[in-house]
């Protein structure tokens, strides 16, 4: 133990209202650690996180001139930010505070051994004190940011996002893989809930994009490289024409990934797909849209008198795509209203597993029913079967839970398979940006409610259907959330990052290169100086994972906040027999 660093540390041991104190003798812990000469304040408290206790801590820190804080309570996942805040408000460097977990890792785990739990708590708190004793004051890293964003994907989400960004003064580059902007929506006719054709919506957005000189549009383009650090990335874009290929570089502060989704393509034979007259909801939408001119819904020249919609095709399938695509019920209900507009005498049967026309879309569902659409719920384990009749019409056999246990056969002219969304095949982009994907193949946000468009990769935001199936309305909401999130990062001109990052002690580095391949964030690079090759770590790119520290054969890499010295001291603290006096 280093006697040279005489510290003034405050230690608070939490009862957690009995969660800890029922199993751990917190008084005994306090007595044991109070013997440490660096512990100036040692207290137990009913709830460390309570407002009153926080004020007491601030008073203690200021009154006793503390320069270190240890809170022994619950998991750091719960209250690290709470007590960093307490430190900051008391003018104590937040990184001079250590959280010790004596609840999840002690009292809850050892409810049958009160003495053992108490001994373990003493050891854990001692380790925390030992780590705190060697803490250094750290300041957040400040990085300059570039007021520019690259939007990957030029569908409805990407376009609306680009416009939003341009309007708050962030320069935008839209990178679109296809030759045309607009994505899926650009090909669609009337869309729910307001009937406006997708084509027109995209045309309006394109006009708005064109009117904003700060938006650069790149088509036939793909993002192929990302270098630099948070707030100031260098993005490499490959532009391709039939003959040429060109690489361009752009400096951007953030990325918004809005690459969208694909539509599910039924396999041949799946629910009759492949039989003449069995179409997907997308094909059907085109058919209905085209029928507006003639006023007659026809298939292969024959007037359509009845339609059966089969819902949840390729969605909500155990062992397949288990998710719900969210838009398809509403889209189908809407399509049935359009069909009824064309010819109210067309009979429409909706074979569903439950209609998820949620929120305001419920009203469309009601309208569809009132116009004569019949909704039949089929059992999950008995999907409808589809056969072609000799007269080319189709026979759909289904069991309607509401009518009778006997199957019914619907003679119809068209069967519409209501197909949902599937994730796009974007492996190269996913690998390049290190974007996390879920089991379903869609990109994952950090938290679906609280951080809905951020990813674990700083400065890379996701929006729209690339993060999960959804209607266009919700996709655009996500895009505008990404606008706000980008603005939060870029508009200040700088960003503050956690200073818990790795550093290289140049004099100790031998330039072996071991660490270079270890870093998952490409934060370590090498450079050549008088003494030869050396490694250096970009603080802005480092996530503080610590992966590089143990691989360095020279121990030249230290993780700030968790230095070698701190960790060794903490281990010593753990193994000190609690009965004995602390080793001097």
């Amino acid at each position, binding site marked *: 133990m280093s006697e040279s660093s005489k510290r003034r540390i405050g230690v608070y041991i939490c009862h957690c209202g009995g969660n800890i104190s029922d199993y751990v003798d917190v008084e005994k812990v306090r007595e044991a650690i109070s013997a440490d000469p660096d512990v100036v304040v040692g207290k137990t408290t009913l709830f460390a996180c309570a407002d009153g206790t926080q004020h007491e801590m601030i008073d203690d820190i200021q009154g006793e001139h503390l320069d270190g804080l240890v809170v022994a309570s619950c998991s750091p996942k719960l209250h690290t930010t709470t007590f960093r805040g307490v430190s900051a408000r008391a003018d104590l460097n937040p990184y001079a505070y250590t959280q010790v977990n004596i609840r999840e890792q002690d009292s809850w785990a050892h409810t049958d051994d009160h003495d053992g739990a108490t001994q373990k708590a003493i050891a854990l708190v001692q380790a925390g004190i030992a780590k705190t004793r060697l803490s250094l004051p750290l300041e957040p890293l400040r990085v300059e940011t570039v007021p520019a964003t690259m939007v990957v994907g030029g569908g409805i989400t990407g376009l609306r996002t680009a416009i939003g960004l341009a309007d708050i003064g962030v320069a935008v580059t839209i990178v679109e893989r296809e030759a045309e902007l607009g994505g899926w929506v650009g090909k669609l006719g009337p869309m729910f809930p307001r009937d406006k054709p997708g084509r027109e919506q995209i045309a309006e957005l394109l006009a708005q994009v064109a009117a904003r000189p700060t938006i650069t549009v790149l088509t036939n383009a793909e993002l192929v490289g990302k270098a630099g650090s948070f707030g100031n990335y260098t993005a490499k874009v490959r532009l391709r024409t039939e003959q040429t290929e060109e690489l361009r570089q752009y400096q951007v502060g953030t990325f918004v990934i809005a690459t969208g989704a694909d539509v599910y393509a039924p396999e041949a034979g799946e629910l009759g797909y492949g039989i003449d007259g069995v179409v997907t909801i997308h094909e059907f939408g085109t058919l209905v849209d085209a029928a507006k001119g003639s006023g007659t819904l026809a298939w292969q020249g024959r007037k359509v008198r009845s339609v059966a919609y089969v819902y949840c095709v390729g969605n909500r399938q155990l062992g397949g795509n288990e998710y719900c695509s969210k838009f398809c019920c509403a889209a189908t209900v809407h399509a049935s209203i359009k069909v009824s507009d064309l010819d109210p*005498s067309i009979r429409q049967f909706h074979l569903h597993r439950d209609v998820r026309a949620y929120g305001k879309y419920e009203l469309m569902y*009601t309208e569809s029913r009132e116009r004569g659409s019949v909704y039949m719920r089929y059992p999950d384990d008995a999907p409808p079967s589809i056969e072609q009749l000799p007269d080319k019409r189709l026979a759909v056999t289904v069991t309607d839970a509401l*009518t009778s246990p006997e199957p*019914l056969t*619907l003679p119809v002219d068209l069967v519409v398979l209501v197909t949902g969304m599937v994730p796009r095949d974007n492996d190269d982009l996913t690998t390049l940006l290190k974007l996390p994907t879920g089991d379903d193949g869609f990109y994952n946000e950090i938290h679906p409610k609280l951080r809905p468009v951020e990813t674990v990769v700083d400065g890379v935001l996701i929006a729209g259907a690339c993060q999960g199936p959804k209607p266009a309305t919700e996709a655009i909401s996500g895009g505008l959330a990404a606008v706000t999130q980008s603005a939060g990062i870029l508009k200040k001109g700088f960003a503050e990052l956690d200073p818990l990052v790795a550093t290289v002690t140049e004099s100790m580095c031998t330039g072996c290169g071991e660490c270079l391949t270890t870093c998952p964030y490409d934060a370590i690079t090498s450079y050549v100086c008088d003494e030869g090759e050396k490694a250096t770590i970009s603080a802005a790119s480092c996530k503080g994972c610590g992966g590089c520290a143990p691989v360095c054969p020279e121990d030249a890499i230290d993780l700030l906040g968790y230095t070698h010295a701190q960790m060794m001291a903490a281990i010593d603290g753990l193994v000190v027999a609690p009965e004995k006096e602390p080793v001097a």
Partner: protein
Amino acid sequence: MATVVNIDLMGDLQKFGAADVNACFSCGNCTAICPLSDNDATFPRRVIRYAQVGLTDELLGSKELWTCYHCGLCSDSCPTQADPGEFMAAARRYAIASYEPTGLARVLYTKPVIGTVIAVLVAAFFATFMLTQADLGGIDAPELALFDFVPNDVVHWLGIVVMAAMFLAGAWGVVRMVRAIGKRDGVTLKDTVGSGAAWKRTLGAVWDSLGIESLGQKRFRDDCHDDQEVEPLWRRRWLVHALTIWGFLGLFGATLIDYGLELLGIKETGTPIPLWYPSRALGTVAGLSLMYGVTVFMIGRWKKWSTAQADSKGSDWLFLSLLWITGFTGFVIEVALYMSAPPAWGYWVFLVHVAVAMELMLMLPFTKFAHAMYRPVALFFYALARERSTAGA
């Protein structure tokens, strides 16, 4: 074998009414609140679903159509204003049109103008036919000798022919209905007449249907109005309906007695008789009863007193009108007969009276009058189902 649905059923049925029934989302409030719906006859929700899905056989085999008296509670409590009560009425009209073989009922129900023309033409045909047989010379006689004007035999035999035609069409409809309900309810001939016990059950059900329900109006009277606001007695539907039935049957009875007396050689048809004379007394009381019932029904439909009377089709009016005209002209003739100076118009009123009465009977299977055949059949099956379920339990 899966049932093939009739995709045109709902559209077809809606020609008979039930404009709002598509709004139904099968919640079942109607069935829950209906005082007549029970495990042996569950409606209206189930029957509405048959129509929505397109199960024609199930719909036409539903005795439930006729176990409903259209009190309107279901329509009042329907959360989607789908008007299930009106649906049941429309489905009954559809059933009347579907059971009979000629398509006449469909025209009368769905094409009011053509229906009216047909009604007038039929009456005109009867009148013209009788006129060709009439002896116009006796018009100035000092007494109204109606059967000297149109010979008794002509009226008699024309009546027989009309009754036979009505009976044929009616029997056709009833047979179709019985087969449809029997199939849906799983009632076989063996179940009904195959053994002594079966006979006992069947006769019990016949008594329930004809005696207790049709003549006694028991469920209409006791159960149907459970939760209704109490109407003044003079226009309570079951009472008005009972007076109409009893009035009609009374007149029928009086006619039979009169005919019987002639057969026995006691009195010739058409002979003037005093008011206390049994057949005449019965006829007068029954006629008043019928006139009261029909008139109140017509005013009720005109004023839309209840949900049951809110939506009337041409055929409903035709039935009531024929009944009313028959009754009314009957009384006019009665008055004419006993006036000191017999007016010559008495003969013409008589002509109208007989022609309309003939039409009424001929049209029975094709108008709302058909319920007089079908409802007892349905009530028979209902009584049978109840007996079977009680026995099973």
